[in-house]
């Protein structure tokens, strides 16, 4: 249960390598579920902690991304639903979106798309948010079903509904 106490140096190295390789999952989930920079850092750390705790039970024969997504999404949804978190950091959505998309590393159009995307994400329920995140990350229907614990046909149905919601929500970014 308490991973670090029993971890060998090899285990530790294995965990660090895996985390380094898939750290994008941690950051993307944190970005989708937390608004303020402080909350995002907090959530990313919490996910890393839970990954570490679950590490002894990790089966290398199974896909690492599925394992990481399950833990990251479970932690993020619990974080979103926790009462303390709500009380601590209430950040206006526009400010939070600006915080995420504000940078010189992406062009104006991409930054605008990111703002639109984050506004849309903020309107979704935690489980639909998880589905959208997996979809945007181009995970297969099968992996989405494995991560979330619903059937593949349910995943397909829900994605088409999400597309409809996006259509209702998102104005086309620039008509070229």
């Amino acid at each position, binding site marked *: 249960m308490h991973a670090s106490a029993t971890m060998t140096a090899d285990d530790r190295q294995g965990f660090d390598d895996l985390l380094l390789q898939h750290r994008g999952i941690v950051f993307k989930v944190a970005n989708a579920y937390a608004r303020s920079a402080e909350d995002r850092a907090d959530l*990313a750390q919490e996910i890393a902690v839970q990954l570490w705790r679950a590490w002894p039970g990790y089966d290398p024969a199974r896909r690492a991304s599925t394992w990481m997504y399950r833990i990251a999404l479970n932690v993020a949804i619990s974080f979103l639903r926790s009462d303390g978190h709500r009380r601590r950091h209430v950040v206006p959505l526009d400010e939070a979106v600006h915080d995420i998309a504000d940078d010189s590393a992406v062009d104006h159009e991409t930054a605008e*798309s990111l703002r639109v995307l984050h506004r849309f994400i903020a309107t979704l329920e935690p489980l639909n948010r998880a589905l959208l995140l997996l979809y945007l990350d181009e995970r297969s229907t099968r992996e989405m079903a494995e991560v979330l614990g619903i059937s593949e046909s349910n995943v397909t149905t829900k994605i088409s509904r999400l597309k409809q919601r996006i259509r209702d929500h998102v104005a086309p970014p620039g008509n070229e």
Partner: protein
Amino acid sequence: MTMESTMELDDLKQAWQALDRQLQQQKRINLELLAETRMRKARAGLRWLQVLAVGQVVVGLVVTIFCARFWSSHLHEPALLLSGIVLHAYGVAMIVAGVMEMLLLVRTDYAAQVVTIQKYLALLRQWRIRTRRWFALAQWLLWIPVTLVMLEYLFGFNLWAHSPATVGGFVAVGIVGLLATLWLVFWSPRALRRRVGDYVDDSNTGALLKRAQASLDEIARFERE
């Protein structure tokens, strides 16, 4: 229309991938190092909560054993028999609540499928809120059997046999207190409930229960096609 929405989605996907590339380069947060420090703190906090839950189970066991012995040796004194049985039941409830609390703290396997683990957490959360509420309300009446049992056990004084009116008065006070609290929690005007709620520490219970139920409803909707 369909083409347009596909285009939008593709644009969003591209934006998402741009964000991903950006995040990959993010060196500000050293997850490994931070996780290690935080893990130590989290483990200390968790250990404390586990100690409390284990303590609750131990106290529950002591109460259960003590009360079982007490009421079985007072089979012909109805008030003491009833008091012992009530406290015995309370001890069992404490054990069950403590074990459930430990399950909540220790057995949460975040590597399980999201829907499964979220349902489990929402159910436990709901159960925990309800239990706390009923445990708190029970205190209005529980002090009466505690008084009767302790007077008999420590001083060999059967209060009911000497002064049933006093016990009747205790029960009246308990019932009035219980009804007043129930009124405050369930039926009083919302503004008053919120004001007094801070003192009763039950102000959020209704909202928390609603939120836990909303989570369960959301999960059920999500599971349905």
